């Protein structure tokens, strides 16, 4: 066991993101007190640090292989809650799961949520996550109030859209590189019930799917489309539009209406061991895509569904990332402007087909206006694909990068494991302005991640070791 000066224990661990690619080994600390996190950030025992939430980003943004990675999930205390306005203030390590456990029964829901509850408040803000309501409500940062930041100097400052706005906007989507988010305020939204009215609409090809998205987005808060990446020819881009809105008490059956905030129990499963060679391989993925489309087609229409299975279907399977086997997988999520969306989507789907690559879960969604800086979303279409790591994949993804870049699009940093620095700079034109803010609050690049080193997100040359 090794300890810091004040006796804070550290250990060496294998580090990886949710996609389990890439992996590294590095020092880890898990502060449970403010004094510990303050000491860790300024300690001379390591040259750099990075805060990690629950490690649900996919590639390498949530670990630091050369300094110390701070696991923050136990700094998760509530600080205040105003039941009139819904403003919650809490420590950055508080998980969305805990927020739901504590506040769903009181009639409050997250203003924006990604597809898993296993993220922390600070981690979600650092990635500026989006949800199925982005077209209407924007990304998470739009619903944040003040942040309390621990800077590289050890100084603690508050920032918000009004107070130190440059720091605030550089931190939202800033991948934890501007400082450590000690506390954050988030405005929860009131709900009447813990149920969602879901509408399922199949679409036989890409054009009709995009038309459905455009038609219904204006009227429904939650919308996302699942895409069959195996279908070819006239069915290319066929999929299922899944619309949702919070059910009102009057929508519920009488028996349920008496206790409208009751949560569905939900089945749980887990992937206990590494799937040998990957449970998900091209054959099973192909079979899944066709079967899923036909199943959903039969479910077309409206139904009532419990809130958590609706937003977090994959949370029902613990460690589902193990299904891809030992070599891991990458998620490839890009956004392109509406004007170039159709041609890019067709190009990407055809390229996948040529390469014989099918994606297990592929999601198409329309984004509303973006938040600027390093925040990922902007107005247009976003497509998410996932691929097991196989030989030749990265060359193929480089090819996709070029298509996305030409279309004026960009990749999501929270899912990136492999893009190159030049691509990153071209995709994020606001990077120089962001870097200027980082230079002011972190002149010696104290906050670094494997990703920030790979992409050169620093004012100085920081070499990967």
């Amino acid at each position: 066991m090794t300890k810091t000066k004040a006796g804070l224990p550290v250990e060496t661990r294998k580090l990886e993101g949710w996609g389990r690619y890439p992996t590294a080994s590095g020092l880890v600390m898990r502060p449970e007190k403010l004094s510990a996190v303050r000491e860790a950030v300024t300690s001379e025992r390591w040259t750099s640090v990075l805060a990690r939430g629950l490690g649900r980003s996919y590639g390498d943004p949530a670990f630091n292989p050369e300094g110390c990675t701070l696991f923050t999930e136990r700094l998760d205390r509530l600080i205040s809650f105003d039941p009139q306005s819904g403003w919650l203030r809490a420590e950055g390590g508080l998980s969305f799961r805990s927020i739901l456990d504590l506040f769903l029964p009181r009639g409050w829901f997250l203003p924006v949520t990604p597809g898993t509850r296993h993220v922390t408040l600070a981690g979600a803000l650092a990635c500026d996550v989006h949800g199925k309501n982005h077209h209407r409500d924007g990304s998470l940062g739009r619903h944040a109030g003040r942040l309390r930041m621990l800077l590289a100097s050890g100084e603690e400052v508050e920032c918000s859209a009004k107070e130190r706005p440059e720091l605030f906007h550089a931190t939202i989507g800033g991948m934890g590189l501007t400082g450590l988010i000690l506390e954050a305020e988030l405005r929860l939204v009131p709900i009447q019930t813990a149920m969602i009215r879901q509408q399922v609409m199949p679409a036989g090809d890409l054009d009709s799917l995009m038309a459905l998205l455009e038609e219904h987005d204006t009227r429904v808060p939650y919308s996302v489309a699942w895409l069959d990446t195996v279908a070819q020819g006239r069915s290319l881009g066929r999929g299922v539009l899944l619309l949702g809105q919070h059910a009102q008490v009057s929508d519920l059956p009488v028996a349920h209406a008496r206790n409208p905030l009751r949560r569905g129990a939900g089945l749980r499963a887990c992937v206990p061991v590494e799937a040998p060679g990957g449970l998900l391989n091209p054959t099973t993925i192909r079979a899944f895509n066709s079967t899923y489309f036909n199943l959903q087609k039969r479910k077309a229409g409206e139904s009532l569904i419990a809130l958590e299975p609706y937003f977090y279907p994959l949370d029902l399977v613990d460690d589902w990332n193990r299904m891809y086997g030992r070599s891991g997988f990458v998620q490839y999520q890009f956004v392109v402007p509406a004007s170039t969306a159709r041609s890019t989507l067709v190009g990407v789907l055809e390229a996948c087909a040529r390469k014989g690559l099918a994606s297990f879960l592929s999601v198409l969604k329309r984004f509303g206006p973006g938040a600027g800086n390093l925040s990922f979303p902007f107005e247009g279409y976003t497509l998410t694909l996932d691929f097991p790591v196989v030989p030749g994949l990265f060359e193929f993804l480089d090819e996709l990068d070029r298509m996305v870049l030409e279309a004026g699009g960009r990749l999501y940093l929270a899912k990136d494991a492999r893009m190159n620095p030049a691509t990153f700079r071209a995709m994020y034109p606001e990077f120089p302005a962001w870097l200027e803010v980082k230079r002011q609050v972190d002149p010696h690049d104290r906050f670094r991640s494997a990703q920030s080193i790979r992409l050169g997100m620093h004012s100085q040359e920081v070499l990967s070791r």
Partner: protein
Amino acid sequence: MSTLQGLRGRRICLVGSTSGIARALARQLASRGAILHLGARDLEEAGRDARDLELRGGLPVGFSRFEALDLASHPVFLEEARRQLGGLDCVVVAFGILGDQERARRDFAYARHVMEMNYLAPASILSHAGAMLEDQGTGGMLVALGSVAGDRGRPSNYTYGSAKAGLHAYLQGLRGRLAPAGIRVLTVKPGPVDTPMTFGMGFPGGRLTARPEAVARDIVRAMDRGNEVLYTPCHWSLIMGVLKAIPESIFKRMKI
């Protein structure tokens, strides 16, 4: 009232409230409607914990400074806790340090510190708490965190283990003495738990390391049922049963 049946409305003082197990325990007690007072050396942390518990449980939570090695301050601390709680039903003693056995071997002054933190100081606060409950004449409960390390001395941690063994015996005696007054005494013997005390020792995440939430759940259940000795997780009862049965002549040659 001899147990904390239901726990709702019970006035509980948690001593050493910023320890990993105490924090998890406090959240579960708060969510079950217990009224809490926290004692810790780090008042900034205790204050933040108290606010968190208030927002989770919906009841006010007090806190005050507790200095384990300032034995003379223990009765004052308990008085303050009782005053803030408006009475006292239960005291949970959850502080302690694992210490570094290597250092304790070379530096007996340090060994003495480990012993004081894990035996002398807990015995002192328990003794005062027992007397206070007895004076009140309303029954109640004492809970203290021992350790499986106190069941058998091992080269790797016998300074810590011997102090916990002393604490176990002290609690046994206290249990007998306080039984006529309707006061229960619960000795908790956790195995390794994934807290700051054990982080970095190579076993967190391993099969034998428990999550603090699971240990806290076991403690709440034992408090509710009025148990006397709790091994948590429960398989440690079996493991220690076997280890205790091994003759000393063999045990001394075992590398465990």
